[in-house]
């Protein structure tokens, strides 16, 4: 069940984990904007390296590397398709700048994935729900979000049980032609849907027995407050943003192949 380790949030007491999710989201957005601004490889390398201290402080290296490994397949597709199209457009010749461009596009993708995974690795679903709630998102929506996130591992266990049970009854998932393989999923999906609906009705009863929605105005035990670290992160992201835009407008960015040759 290693796939769900990402969803089973691991609580780590680190300076990054206690930051306000809204600020972390702003940081991710600014990284995103700057990464989109530059098609050159050098600034993208800088952006990539910029995330590493963040990851180290948060002590999520293991999970982070795993998420990067998950992205390698897509990164390889991006690299391949870029190379192929450049190759065809350039009249079946490949020069070094083309290679560098393809590499830069791949790196841009990796930077986006990495920034995003840092956000999700260091933000607990509860914290995220709290941040949503305090950004004036309707409470019903936040509740549905956090509950659904908690529901996922439970339902995944159930899916595994159902799969084992059907396999024990002779279902062979990886057998048959195209259509047969598709249809093999029906004996798994139907019990899964039925049990999820049944569980949801139990959940509804539990919620009603605790008077869910009886009080219009809710209060929270924890309130998100901006601390020194949050202001520091705002400063960092704003300066990344300003520096990125300034360099884009006023500076010439050398390509790596020019520097090396």
């Amino acid at each position, binding site marked *: 069940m290693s796939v769900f380790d990402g969803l089973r949030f691991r609580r780590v007491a680190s300076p990054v984990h206690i930051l306000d999710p809204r600020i972390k989201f702003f940081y991710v957005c600014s990284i995103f904007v700057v990464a989109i601004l530059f098609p050159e490889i050098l600034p993208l390398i800088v952006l990539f390296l910029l995330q590493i201290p963040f990851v180290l402080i948060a002590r999520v290296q293991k999970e982070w590397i795993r998420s990067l490994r998950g992205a390698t397949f897509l990164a390889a597709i991006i690299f391949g398709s870029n190379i192929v199209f450049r190759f065809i457009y350039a009249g079946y010749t490949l020069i070094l700048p083309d290679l560098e461009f393809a590499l830069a596009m791949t790196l841009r993708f990796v930077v*986006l994935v990495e920034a995003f995974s840092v956000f999700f690795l260091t933000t607990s679903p509860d914290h995220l729900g709290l941040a949503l709630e305090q950004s004036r998102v309707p409470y019903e929506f936040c509740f*549905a979000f956090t509950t659904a996130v908690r529901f996922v591992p439970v339902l995944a266990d159930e899916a595994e049980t159902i799969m084992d049970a059907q396999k024990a009854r002779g279902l062979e998932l990886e057998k048959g032609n195209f259509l047969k393989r*598709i249809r093999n999923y029906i004996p798994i999906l139907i019990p899964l849907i039925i049990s999820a609906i049944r569980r949801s009705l139990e959940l509804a*009863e539990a919620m*009603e027995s605790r008077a869910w929605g009886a009080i219009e105005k809710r209060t929270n035990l924890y309130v998100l407050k901006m601390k020194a670290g949050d202001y520091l992160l705002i400063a960092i992201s704003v300066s990344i943003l300003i520096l990125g835009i300034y360099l884009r407008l006023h500076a010439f960015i050398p390509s790596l192949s020019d520097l090396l040759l």
Partner: protein
Amino acid sequence: MRITAKWISVSVAFAALYAVGVIFLAPISFGVVQVRVADALLPLSMVFGLPSVLGLSLGCLISNSYGSIGHLDVIGGPIANFLATFIAWFIAKRGGVTHRFIGSILETIIVTLIVGGYLSVIFDTPLELSLFGVLIGSIIAINILGFPLEEMIRRNLKSA
């Protein structure tokens, strides 16, 4: 419309189902064509109505943000799911089997256009290629797998 506990809990169930479907029932892949088995849940919005519309969009948000390929996917996927399921529900609520079938075809078209569109932006591939890849996968998941599933569950719910 009043949002009751049952309303919310059904949407929670669908969100979790979709996310589990995406992450656990890993896509069956046949070369270029990837079939997202979880998309077979989309036609179910025609049975379960608005709670499942919210749930399937939320589920897409959750699954896309954990197996993320960037902001566009996290924002675009839920929007695609929301529009597709909402329109299908709207069409199917005043008709019989034909309406439901048209609804499921519309879902395929909407998902193909939106997801194929942003995937070509993310991967820098030509639009036609990514549209084609998503179209095949969606037809299999939504029309071939999802629609019979929807009819089956509708019949069973009636008899239950």
